[in-house]
């Protein structure tokens, strides 16, 4: 394989969306939820309905940043036989089927770094076609070795900023994030919410002012109206996770409902 440029592919995807006058839409699919075949179809459906990037959740036994929806999805996927190897194979199939959309898996530190520096995992992710990676419980304080390993294989390490992140720290985290910066909209765990916090506009403006990379907003984003509100903040992208898992229905197989929501969200990105 030729040298990869994960960060470049990600920023290009944000730039194209911006050039088209809209937010980049980043839907989230849990690898292996409810099973491998359905999650593959969901991923392609999301891309075909207009995803600019795709975030793929790597099921984890102890997802402490996640709310009930994603915990349940993770547990179901694991119960149905999800392993890291299979998740990577799934990513690879998605990348082969839809090569233009950057894939950004999301996992937890112990899956990706554990007792070492994460070099083997970073290489495996890159080999599977991932452009970047989000580690829910990794901050730049601890991320140095993993960043180096990821950089060596052309994989972007996407960090998160939260409403509790101090202004000084915000700039520092942004400067360390590659591909894009994940702006957590609220103080809490993942999960669909009826409304976004009123403070999100101010937060995104503050984050964007110091970020050298595009800023995508996630956590709690559930409806087209939320996407339109985020578009008004000047963000570069929006991440929708739990609401899409909910849209798959109680058994995770309602691809029609899922596709309807992705389409509606995508339509809202242009407002």
């Amino acid at each position, binding site marked *: 394989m030729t040298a990869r440029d994960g960060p470049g592919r990600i920023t290009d995807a944000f730039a194209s969306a911006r050039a088209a006058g809209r937010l980049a839409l980043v839907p989230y699919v849990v690898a292996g939820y409810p099973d491998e075949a359905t999650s593959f179809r969901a991923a392609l459906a999301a891309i075909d309905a207009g995803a600019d990037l795709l975030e793929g959740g790597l099921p984890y*036994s*102890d997802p*402490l*940043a996640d709310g009930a929806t994603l915990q349940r999805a993770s*547990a179901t996927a694991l119960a149905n036989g999800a392993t890291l190897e299979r998740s990577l194979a799934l990513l690879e199939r998605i990348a082969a089927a839809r090569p233009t959309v950057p894939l950004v898996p999301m996992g937890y530190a112990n899956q990706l770094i554990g*007792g070492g520096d994460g070099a083997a995992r970073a290489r495996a992710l890159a080999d599977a076609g991932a452009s970047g990676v989000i580690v*829910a419980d990794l901050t730049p304080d601890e991320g140095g070795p993993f960043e180096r390993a990821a950089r060596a294989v052309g994989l972007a390490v996407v*960090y998160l*900023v939260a409403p509790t992140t101090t202004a000084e720290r915000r700039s520092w985290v942004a400067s360390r994030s590659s591909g894009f910066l994940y702006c957590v909209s609220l103080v809490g*765990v993942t999960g669909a919410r009826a409304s976004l916090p009123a403070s999100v506009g101010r937060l995104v403006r503050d984050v964007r002012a110091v970020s050298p990379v595009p800023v995508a907003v996630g956590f709690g984003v559930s409806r087209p109206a939320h996407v339109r509100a985020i578009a008004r903040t000047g963000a570069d992208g929006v991440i929708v996770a739990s609401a899409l898992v909910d849209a798959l229905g109680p058994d995770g197989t309602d691809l029609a409902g899922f596709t309807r929501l992705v389409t509606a969200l995508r339509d809202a990105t242009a407002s």
Partner: protein
Amino acid sequence: MTTRTGIVHEIAARRAADLERDLAGRSRTELERLAAAAPPPRPIAERLAEPGLHLIAEIKRASPSAGAIAADTDPIARARAYEAGGAAAISVLCEPHWFGGSVDDLVAVRGAVSVPVVAKEFVVDRRQLPLLRAAGADVVLLLAVLHPARRLASLVRAALDLGLEPLVEAHDAGELERALATDARLVGVNNRDLRTLEVDPERAVRLRDAIPGDRLAVAESGVRDAAVLAGWRAVGYDAALVGEALMRSPDPRATAASFVAAGRMPADPAASDRVPFVKICGVTDEAGALAAVRAGADAIGLNLAPGTPRELSLAEAAGLAAVVRAAATPGHRPQIVAITVDADAEALRAIVAAVDPDAIQLHGDESPGQAAAAGRPVWRAIRVPVGATPDDVGPILDEASVWSAAGAERILLDASGGPHPGGTGRRIDPAVAAAVAREVPVLLAGGLDPTSVSDAVLAVPAIGVDVAGGAERPREPGVRPVKDPLRVALFVKRARAARWDRPQSPARPTPVPAGLLEADATGRWGIDRAFGGRYVPETLVAALVQLEDAYAAVRDDPRFWSEFRELLGRFAGRPTPLYRADRWAADALARARASGGSADHRAGDGGADREPLPSRLRVYLKREDLAHTGAHKINNALGQALLTRRLGKTRVIAETGAGQHGVATATACALLGIPCVVYMGAEDVERQAPNVSRMRSLGAEVIPVTSGSATLKDAINEAMRDWVTNVATTHYVLGSAMGPHPYPTIVRDLQRVIGDEAAAQLAFVEGRLPDLVLACVGGGSNAIGLLSRFIGEPSVRLALAEAAGDGIPTGRHAAALLGGSPGILHGARSLMLQDADGQVVEAHSLSAGLDYPGVGPQIAALYEAGRLEVAAATDAEAVEAVEWVTRTEGILPALETAHAFAVLPRLLARTDRPAQDGWSPFIAPWPEEAIVLVGLSGRGDKDLAAIARWEAAVAAGAAR
């Protein structure tokens, strides 16, 4: 100079006008004659220099801030009540217009009590001083706010000339600077601003460090209750002047007694273990020798080195030694040390014959070979050049080890560079002294005085200090220096108090890699700093940083630790007993023999892992089961509840497995009135129903967690999710020494009282350290709490017992050390149970408190470094051990603790060798008489139902 406005200047002006009238025509000579005729002054300084905080109780009928308080009080009855309550002195208001006082009150009180009396007067004219002395005053108040620096200093000198002890009162840094520029020995800080009458209750605490240790510090105003006085004692005040709180008491004797009690040094075996040995060196006269005895010095140095400034003749030294022997309480006599420089054998024989010292200090160029010829135990002074840097410690350490090997009983570090050995009055670079004192036990000498000694013992983990010039009167040329009794007393007091309320200050050598003792700035532990850290969602970083900052302040705040100790004592039942379990020990030794350990200590031919067993075994149990709520968990819960208050947070969350931490946290929250939510795995809620009821009775909300395996790890996940959501108002009271930085440090610090106490208690009954310290380990809070004190003691083996569940080979266990691998769990890198994908593997143990797939990072670091031996007990072995201990000792231990009992016979027979080799140099053969310390972490009532269910299931399985 501040503007002369405000109530204090109004009062002063009125006082000046009064004096114009009262003193018209009276000459200074006449007034001084009156003063000279007064009964001799009663000394106060020596009393205040005794350990603790002393009460100066005030008689005050009214005040500008409070108005009339007790206008028609009987000053004599009240003063006698104060004295009966233990007040060190009585203060009497003399100002008539605002305070309703009078000199007549002073005269009456002075005649009615035998303690010194303070004239609380607004002194605006030096002629007031002889008048007050004539009325019987022993101490006079001088307000810095009323006087520019030169006048204040001259008033102080005038008072001293009359035999009146001045107490100079300041209320801010500027006034304090003027007060300290005088010769006053007593310096007060008033929380009340006398211009505005406003009280800032933290003012005295903030300003304490600005008062040098050779002054007596008095705190004033703002005493709501006895706890304020306990805090002032902890930060180093020598006295508290209390007025209104006593005047408003219906029972002044009782209230005074409660205030006096709050000022005493609290009993604390763990703290006494940190107190440095104090040697008063170069005593030259009887007064100095008596001062050292009275202050409770551990040793007195008599200098017999010819040509040195404090040289004594043999006869003088013998005389002073006799004074010390006659004055000291039997059993508490300071050791008498003869200081010599290059004395020959004949001179040493003469010294021994004449002075009969307890030790000879060799302070010259003697060689270690001469130690044996001294005729008494030898103390060696190693001279350290003042300009030495930490790079120069190698030769110093070499010299110390050569002398130790030659039998030197103690090693002193003294600064060199002056004309004579020792006594240069110069200080060794603290970094150099600390580098040496971390490796070998030393007494620190050179340039110490009552002002510097406190910082020195906090910066240097020396086991003792030595003072000569720093405790003397100002030198006069050509005159042999003499000790100042007050400086001697203050030196001893400051040295002893420095670490009392600072349990985190190292007090002895810890010759192990630093990474095994403390985390670095990023929270990493281990020789390579491979464990710990902070792996958390970004949302939590701010809260962890806030916690880290708040805890950094608390760690150095003696008031926090004083309050914590008080709660542990009054509420939680500390110190917990150390119990010698003889019947069980005999049984354990018999089992060890039966398992193949050799009974013949001298044989030593039992093969590589069969070393001789001890001939006798004494097992001591540290009885945390007797702490309130039945386990060690209360220590951490109370400490973190206090911390919650400091953080300004209003809600507490906690996780719990067996329910012990949940109960402890709910208890601490009930005590302090903080709402509490406990997350508990749904499976554990079922297994531990009695603890769920206890938590709910205590007012806590118990939330069952059904995600994942519905056990402890999932409860932690859910607590973290709550914390992520409510971080602004909520403190997460983590229950074990694990989790993201700074939790492993905080929980360890709060639990280390277990081992600190046990070491002191064991020293009291056995006079030495244990040979082996053993605890059970789940997350590791009781383990690290017990072990911390001993990590840096190379002679002590450390061992932990993990839960092997159905057996480690079955994969159904909770042995993160023996059966785990490095990974990241709950915010920190450590050892954990996981699969090849990094998925956390569920732990299995009948013991809910050990049923956790990880372990704290410091323990992982100790294990990887080879500083720990680890063994594991199965559920079956633990259940058997519960019954074994209960039947032989009448103590029902928790199932968790039972794992430790189960593995001890194997550890004795040494069939469990350290799994890791590498760095550890610690394995030594058993002594003939071995002492083992076991952490009895909790009581076992809670487990009886679970054990019965387990036994029934086993029986059913066997029947099939």
